């Protein structure tokens, strides 16, 4: 189903009225579903067969919990990377080795709601090394290695609920952040078991700073900062002059806990929270924080053992801003802000009040002056609130309805998505003047310019990630695939070039030139370096072994057979572990492994890799197994049998591959 972002039913009704008004204005929306696409649009997105796209586009899978990779400008789907959800295609979350990646303090969680991809950066520019992505529901952040396009690390975020404002990165990916959407009671069990009506006393927010190890990609929580009980929405790090600061949009400063669509829309202004993260880092280093309860899992993919390693942490370092003046400031921001975006110069912070009729742009220089002069209009739960007029660079007046998110090009322009009026509006950051607008189909959420939230946008395109797709493609029942739309921003006028369907909810995305990613591509895993405890380096090392009720099979694959392909002596009540090593050392030649009655999935084993499928036979008989990935002309011949005997059977355990000449 479609998710109208944070907009509520009440808002939509109101918005509906406004939509009619806007729709009747000339130049705002066409009256039909067809658009005029100029003659050379097709040529601009045509990528000849056998040639590559210019950009990789990393798009969140939303409620699919995954990360999709598209080529730009073609819109071709290149890959779907399993992150937070199990994936039967690859066996991710099903194989014994990958299950650990989805372990949390709530147990094995095979799904999440992933919203924001964020590319790792060096000197404030995406470097093509990693892509981070958040899990909202069971708060987690994942790191995908762009050498393998695989999830390398997942960390759970304690004391958090609805991990929305994440995982935005600092300029050298020293940290990615995670702000809690829902404030919740924290502490031990007694402290968390409180009446919901005590929200104002007992509910607290926090923002977490997660450090990815630059070498291994293993993530840890460096520190958390406790905040008043509000809802955090989005975030971005400062850059250039504002480097060392982080900005978070927050709503529900009413501190409502019921019917938020009304009760959290009472105030004219909510806040953007400014965090001096360099100071927080120093305080944490100086031992100023306290360790508070915060059980969380840290999962890491070991590429040598081809297995997840899981570490459990019981607590987390927390900083209380009350003890550290200068750590946090609030800036009033109209109204229920969503996007919180820093321009490439790092001088301006753009707020996007979902319910506001203007776009406020804050000046980092003015923020610093206001802080120095203690130019405040009071405090909110002990945090100083800077005066709106004092920190404002200016407002973009009447830009459209429902501003959500802003990205930038390299020429001083901003591009803001408008959910309610379904359009992209281009405006000049210094002058705060609208220079162009173009409709989207329909209800755009986030948008994306390649490098558009970094110091050096590549520009060229803006992509709209839309929530509604009706009448864009052939209908497929009540549910339609969601859509992305590619616009050229090369000229003065934005120009629609292409629609393309996306999986899940294409919530947010990032894009990077292909040349930054391609050279690092891993093509196969070196069999010599395989340190999996059950690896078989060659058929010589294949075997079958009983360990009590467990039967372990060291199995190999190569075009086009398994070794062993005949196994006998398995008994009812046994658990069989197939440890499958793919002996191939060639790019793009995985082998699959499936066995009849498997209750989990298949395996897809990459060249040089070992993966394990657990199988518990349920009946006596001979059970076939086969390769699921068409690997050669004799792929259909890539098969074998497992004989399962009664529990009291005396059939000896053996596994073998019998040659043609042995008397078949």
């Amino acid at each position, binding site marked *: 189903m479609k998710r109208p972002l944070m907009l509520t039913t009440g808002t939509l009704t109101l918005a509906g009225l406004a939509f009619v008004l806007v729709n009747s204005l000339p130049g705002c929306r066409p009256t039909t579903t067809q658009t005029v696409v100029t003659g050379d649009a097709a040529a601009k997105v045509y990528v000849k067969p056998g040639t590559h796209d210019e950009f990789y586009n990393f798009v969140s899978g939303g409620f699919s919990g995954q990360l999709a990779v598209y080529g730009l400008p073609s819109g071709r789907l290149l890959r779907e990377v399993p992150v937070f959800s199990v994936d039967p295609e690859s066996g991710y979350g099903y194989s014994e080795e990958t299950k650990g990646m989805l372990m949390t303090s709530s147990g094995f969680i095979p799904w999440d709601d992933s919203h924001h991809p964020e590319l790792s950066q060096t000197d404030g520019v995406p470097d093509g090394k990693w892509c981070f992505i958040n899990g909202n529901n069971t708060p987690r952040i994942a790191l995908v290695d762009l050498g393998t396009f695989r999830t390398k690390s997942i960390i759970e975020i304690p004391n958090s609920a609805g991990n929305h404002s994440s995982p935005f990165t600092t300029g050298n990916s020293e940290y990615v952040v995670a702000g809690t959407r829902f404030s919740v009671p924290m502490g031990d069990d007694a402290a968390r078991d409180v009446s919901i009506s005590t929200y104002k006393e007992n509910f607290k927010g926090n923002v977490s700073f997660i450090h990815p190890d630059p070498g291994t990609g293993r993530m840890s929580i460096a520190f958390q900062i406790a905040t008043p009980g509000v809802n955090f929405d989005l975030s971005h790090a400062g850059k250039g002059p504002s480097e060392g600061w982080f900005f978070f949009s927050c709503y529900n400063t009413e501190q409502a806990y019921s019917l938020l669509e009304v009760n959290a829309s009472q105030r004219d202004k909510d806040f953007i929270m400014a965090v001096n993260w360099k100071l927080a880092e120093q305080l944490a280093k100086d031992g100023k924080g306290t360790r508070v309860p915060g059980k969380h899992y840290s999962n890491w993919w070991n590429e040598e053992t081809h297995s997840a390693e899981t570490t459990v942490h019981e607590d987390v370092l927390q900083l209380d801003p009350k003890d550290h003046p200068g750590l946090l400031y609030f800036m009033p921001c109209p109204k229920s802000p969503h996007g919180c975006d820093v321009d490439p110069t790092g001088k301006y912070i753009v707020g996007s009040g979902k319910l506001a009729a203007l776009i406020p742009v804050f000046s980092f220089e003015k923020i610093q002056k206001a802080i120095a002069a203690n130019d405040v209009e009071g405090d909110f739960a002990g945090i100083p609130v800077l005066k709106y007029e004092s920190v404002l660079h200016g407002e973009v007046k009447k830009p459209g309805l429902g501003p959500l998110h802003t990205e930038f090009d390299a020429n001083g322009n901003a591009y803001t998505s408008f959910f309610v009026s379904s359009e992209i509006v281009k405006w000049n950051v210094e002058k705060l003047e609208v220079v162009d607008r173009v409709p989207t189909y329909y209800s755009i959420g986030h948008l994306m310019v390649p490098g558009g939230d970094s110091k050096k946008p590549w520009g060229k395109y803006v992509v709209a990630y839309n929530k509604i797709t009706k009448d864009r493609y052939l209908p497929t029942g009540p549910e339609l695939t969601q859509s992305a739309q590619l616009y050229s921003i090369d000229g003065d006028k934005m120009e629609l070039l292409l629609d393309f369907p996306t999986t899940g909810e294409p919530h947010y995305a990032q894009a990077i030139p292909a040349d930054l990613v391609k050279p690092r591509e891993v093509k196969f895993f070196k069999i010599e370096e395989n340190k999996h405890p059950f690896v078989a380096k060659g*058929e010589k090392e294949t075997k079958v072994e009983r360990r009590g009720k467990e039967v372990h099979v060291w199995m190999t694959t190569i075009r086009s057979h398994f070794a062993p392909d005949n196994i006998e002596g398995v008994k009812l009540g046994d658990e069989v572990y197939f440890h499958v090593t793919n002996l191939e050392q060639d790019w793009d030649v995985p082998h699959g492994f499936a066995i009849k009655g498997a209750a989990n999935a298949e395996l897809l084993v990459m060249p040089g890799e070992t993966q394990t499928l657990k199988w518990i036979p349920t009946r006596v008989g001979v059970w076939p197994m086969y390769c699921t990935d068409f690997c050669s002309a004799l792929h259909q011949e890539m098969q074998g049998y497992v004989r399962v005997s009664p529990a009291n059977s005396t059939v000896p355990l053996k596994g*073998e591959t019998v040659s043609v000449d042995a008397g078949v």
Partner: protein
Amino acid sequence: MSTSTKKIAIAVMVLSLTAACGGGNDAPSAGPPGAPTLEKESAGGGAGSKAKLLTEADVTLGDIDAGMAEQGKTTYDVKCQACHSMGENRVVGPGWKGITTRRKPEWIMNMIVNTDAMLAEDPEAQRQLEECLVRMPNQNLSMEEARQVLEFMRTL
């Protein structure tokens, strides 16, 4: 399976093969697992631009070097044995016994390190593929490893 059973199973597999690849014992060509596709070649495909193949001058043979042959056997066990027996007969690809008397050293080396180019360009390699019907995997051996495998073949 116990270690001894396993040894027997493998021995049976190796010794009991009789059918040559495609039957033609006169010229069963060898193809030890091969090397990465050349940089300019398209992957997994074959139809790339002309690859630079090794020539007769690139591969010189002396007396059999036992040390090198032993290294070659180690590589064989991990990367080649699944498809090639040390006997005369075919498993997936042709058996290796006597292979160095039937194929030129540079041809064998090319099959190992320039597999895709050979399958794309060399008529003998293509004839072999028509018989075996499984493209020889490019097993990503270095030039040095390939030379060691060739040395091992000479001992068979």
